[in-house]
């Protein structure tokens, strides 16, 4: 779930007030995140099942099930030879234990899937970095040559 602030207003989302606001007729089609936000913050209008706007606040809510992380495409997991998603890139579309021996070092990993945690690990399972959904992580310099696989 991601909020894009178009205006300068800082949105303080109130604790869940189950106030039925101007919810559109097809409320059952809305994603749970949009439903929750509409209930918690009055004045919002759902545009699609996954987007809603609050014009007075200049705020838009966009629910994305998975998002790209840098150059790591949506729905995939990636390992890079350098930190901050630089260098030769290995990509996989499914989870599991994936060998990174094709690159000498693993400097960063990116998890563009919508569930699970991606770890960069050494051969015996030591975890050197972890990235949650939609996130990336760097491996400390000393450990970059020790990573032999990533796993989720």
């Amino acid at each position, binding site marked *: 779930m991601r909020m894009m602030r178009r205006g300068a207003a800082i949105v303080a989302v109130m604790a869940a007030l189950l106030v039925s606001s101007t919810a559109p007729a097809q409320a059952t089609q809305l994603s749970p995140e949009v439903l929750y936000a509409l209930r918690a913050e009055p004045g919002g209008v759902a545009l699609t099942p996954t987007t809603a706007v609050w014009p007075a606040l200049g705020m838009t809510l966009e629910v994305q099930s998975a998002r790209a992380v840098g150059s790591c495409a949506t729905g995939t997991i990636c390992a890079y030879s350098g930190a901050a998603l630089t260098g030769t890139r290995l990509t996989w579309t499914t989870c599991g234990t994936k060998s990174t021996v094709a690159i000498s070092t693993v400097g960063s990993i990116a998890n563009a899937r919508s569930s699970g945690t991606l770890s960069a690990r*050494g051969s015996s399972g030591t975890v050197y970095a972890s990235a949650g959904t939609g996130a990336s992580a760097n491996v400390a310099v000393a450990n970059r040559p020790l990573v032999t696989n990533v796993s989720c």
Partner: protein
Amino acid sequence: MFVSPDADAHTAEARREAFSALFERCYPRVLRFVRGTGKDAMEAEDITSEVFAVAWNKFDLRDPIDLNWLMGTAINKLRDHDRRARRRRSETIPLSAAVEGAPTGLDPLDVLAVREALAGLTAKDRQVLQLMVQEGYSAHDVGQMLRRSEGSVWTRASRARAQLRKSLRIEDNDE
């Protein structure tokens, strides 16, 4: 000019068998040595696995890899790894670990004193003592691992022992 798929598969199988045999024979030895430098169990496994991953990459049936090459590679990896690691006291082993490794009959504090004295040697001196005394390799083999002459290995070993005696304040009696 074709390489028949059958010959290719046959070579690949032979390669796997030979590498597995090398791994089975040598992995515990390399691991023991890496562990002996003070790395904890998991880190030692990682570094040892890395040595064998490099070995697999260059493994060629016509030019076999031996234990000496593996140990030499491990030494290089350890040197690079230690240099890159953030500042921490090398060879700092918690006292509980020291007690765990001590054979019965020896005061854990004595064992710790020897470890500290070993840590005070230069890397090369320490490696020679580790490989010759702790791991039991011949001076010839150690020479191969360190890419030095057998003679220089002997010299270094006796110098290292002398230094160790000095650190432990032991008198050298030729009994």
